[in-house]
């Protein structure tokens, strides 16, 4: 039984809540891989370093972090040098043998570098040449299996590595889905800063009991739309179940899985 847990990223969401659950799952012999983001840490560190954070928008309304070279540097600092060590130390305190990786380690997350494109930046349509972003093309499963065979819990995060051998940012939700598919995971759990999938993102009482991937004209947008897309990719790729769950509670993983059963 392999469970991929996507956590971290949203403000107000403490990624270390996952440690007791990871300890419980591994204690019963399950395999676990944690994939984390850390947008709030990136934003905070960017502020301290005076690196402005901007978003690239498309006419269709989606937006993504404008990962210029200075932002990529901050992203690596925050994810690999701050979020991940905190998570690893917490897992260690809970007795979990965890090992941290970004997509650069052993080239685990391989991406195609995004080519020159146009987008809306600060309300103006511009040619973007220096966006250090990519689309995942492959997950190297061999090293991940080897780590798990050795009883270790991989703690993975962006960036990925591009065909030119340089790091590029990739979406962490999509990466979680790609990793879950590549490893043939039974469970993929997205821990979010919301109680579940909301019909109205501003109203936490509107949790949807059911959402069909084929539902057209959905009001669901932003980060949750990306999670839904990633969930769809994972399900179509053979992942047993995908759960989108509240990451702000104690024991969020076991709760989503319905207990240790």
């Amino acid at each position: 039984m392999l469970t991929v847990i996507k956590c971290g990223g949203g403000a107000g969401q403490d990624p270390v809540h996952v440690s007791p659950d990871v300890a419980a799952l591994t204690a019963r012999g399950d395999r676990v891989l944690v994939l984390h983001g850390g947008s709030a840490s990136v934003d905070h560190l960017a502020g301290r370093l005076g690196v402005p954070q901007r978003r690239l928008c498309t006419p269709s309304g989606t937006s993504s972090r404008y990962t210029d070279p200075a932002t990529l540097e901050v992203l690596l600092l925050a994810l690999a040098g701050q979020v991940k060590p905190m998570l690893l130390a917490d897992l260690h305190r809970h007795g979990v043998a965890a090992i941290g990786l970004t997509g650069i380690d052993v080239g685990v997350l391989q991406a195609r570098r995004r080519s020159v494109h146009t987008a809306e930046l600060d309300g103006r349509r511009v040619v973007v040449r220096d966006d250090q972003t990519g689309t995942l093309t492959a997950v190297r499963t061999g090293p991940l299996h080897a780590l798990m065979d050795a009883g270790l819990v991989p703690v993975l995060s962006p960036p990925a590595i591009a065909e030119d051998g340089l790091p590029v940012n990739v979406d962490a939700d999509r990466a979680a889905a790609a990793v879950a598919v590549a490893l043939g995971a039974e469970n993929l759990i997205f821990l979010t800063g919301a109680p579940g999938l909301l019909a109205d993102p501003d109203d936490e009482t509107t949790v949807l009991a059911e959402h069909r991937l084929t539902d057209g004209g959905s009001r669901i947008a932003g980060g949750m739309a990306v999670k839904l897309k990633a969930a769809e990719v994972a399900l179509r790729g053979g992942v047993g179940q995908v759960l989108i769950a509240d990451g702000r509670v104690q024991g969020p993983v076991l709760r989503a899985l319905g207990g240790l059963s």
Partner: protein
Amino acid sequence: MAMELCPSCRGQVVVDGSARASEIVECPECGSVLELVSTNPFALALAPDVAEDWGE
């Protein structure tokens, strides 16, 4: 505000004075998609033929 020549049709293109390098402007005469490759001095070039969307 500046008047520049379209590199494609030599028509007049108005460039906003607050425009920044890499900004896209369209030629009102021939419809070419142009990139403001420099702001000092203002210089227009045909924009690279690139996708607008994330390609997902």
